[in-house]
């Protein structure tokens, strides 16, 4: 009954014409159909953020997004960060500050940081922004709140915050 739906996905600058069951998530599409296994499946229910990718520039949980809804969208995954100036700096900072231990959440964390910095530059507030009418300085408290959608079971949070702080200083 589901049938297959034609979908054109632009992933890391490359167009893919696919025919997908509407039950396929963007996450499974990336990993199983396109072989891009850098994006990780953690909880598969939108609770951990390991599957974070950018869709038209915004970070989303790819596990909760039907791939057919991404028809025509520009998807950016961790695989593209090697060729991205900011993405590379974020990855280097994670290494320098031990922003990981087992590494399973890391690709989601990196994608999330890149989008989070863009959100902050665009002036978006967070739940800990005291004055909603102006730009918020990117304090450690702001960084932690803005990265709350990415869990790290190894508890590398202090290293992650330090890495982000370094990226924003350079």
């Amino acid at each position, binding site marked *: *009954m*589901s*049938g297959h*739906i034609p979908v054109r996905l632009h992933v890391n600058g490359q167009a893919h014409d696919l025919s997908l069951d*509407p*039950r396929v*998530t963007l996450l499974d599409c990336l990993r199983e159909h396109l072989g891009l296994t850098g994006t990780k499946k953690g909880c*598969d*229910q*939108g609770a951990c*953020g390991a599957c*974070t990718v950018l869709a038209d520039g*915004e*970070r*989303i*949980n790819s596990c*909760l*997004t*039907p791939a*057919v*809804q991404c028809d025509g969208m520009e998807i950016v995954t961790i695989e593209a960060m090697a060729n991205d100036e900011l993405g590379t700096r974020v990855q280097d900072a994670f290494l320098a500050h031990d922003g990981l231990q087992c590494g399973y959440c890391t690709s989601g964390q990196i994608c*999330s940081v890149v*989008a*989070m910095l863009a*959100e902050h530059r*665009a*002036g*978006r*507030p*967070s*739940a800990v*922004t005291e004055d*909603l*009418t102006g730009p918020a300085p990117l304090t450690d408290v702001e960084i*932690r*709140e*803005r990265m*709350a*959608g990415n869990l790290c079971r190894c508890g590398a949070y202090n290293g992650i915050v330090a890495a982000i702080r370094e990226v924003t200083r350079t």
Partner: protein
Amino acid sequence: MREFAYLRAADVAEAVELAGPQGKYLAGGTNLFDLMREEVERPERVVDISRLPLSAIEPLPGGGLRLGALARNAHVAADDRVRRRYPVLARALLKGASPQLRNRATVGGNLVQRTRCRYFYDLTAACNKREPGAGCDALGGFNRTHAILGASPNCVAVHPSDMCVALAALDATVNLTGPDGERSVPVTGFHLLPGGTPHVETVLRNGDLITSVDLPPERPWHGDYVKVRDRASYAFALVSLAVLLDVRHGRTVAARIALGGVAHKPWRAYSAEEQLVGAAADEAAFDRAAAAAVAEARPLDHNAFKAELARRLVRRTLVELAGQS
């Protein structure tokens, strides 16, 4: 996940026609798609409305603001007009979910999101909401996060939204289009108490599509949205609270109090508001209001703390807001 027919609508009229009485509308998918994967939701027809032109945030004649049903939670919270004129709504949205989820979740989807009661998600548990007449395992189960107000022996689930609590305090209006045309309902009357039919959660009739939410013109009050949860961020509320207060010359002129995490719907504490309006804005009045807000509370085995938590939150927030007036 069960198979389903995936349909795309070109406009609102076609969406309503395609959905029919049994179809489900798919917007951001953050709740529906998850429930479909768990097979709690098993729609045979899913109408993808995510491309419909319903994401604008526009001024209303007379000074209000219209939020398109497909406006993303993140975009509403970041909108300059919302931040300046309806900060209680911006704060509520920002305290909900995570940045990733807020980038997908929509205004309309947030209104119709379903409870996070574990027994509702657990297909091996009895749940009247999932299967009418099956019973309620939460009633005698682990019900620490469940309702203290307005519940019934059939269902003690709570509505999980933060946004809706702020909308209830603001007296927002929900605009719908259905098979019989357009209509509007106050958000305070949009969600229903469980009674004998906990599977009927809103006034939406089969095929109704939420098209927008209207915020009334802003008024000169101080407001805040307070949320208490088990961790500092990214968790559903144990108790949350939207308060709007207008104090002039030491007297409360207007007050709105809505509680989240305590009932099957965003809970307007009208009796607490009545204790405030016209009275001196002092701690005695705030004590009376806070007590009135939870006077009808009927805690379950594991959630008596919620009534005291709600009472203290109401009192503290009123004291703080009066201090700003």
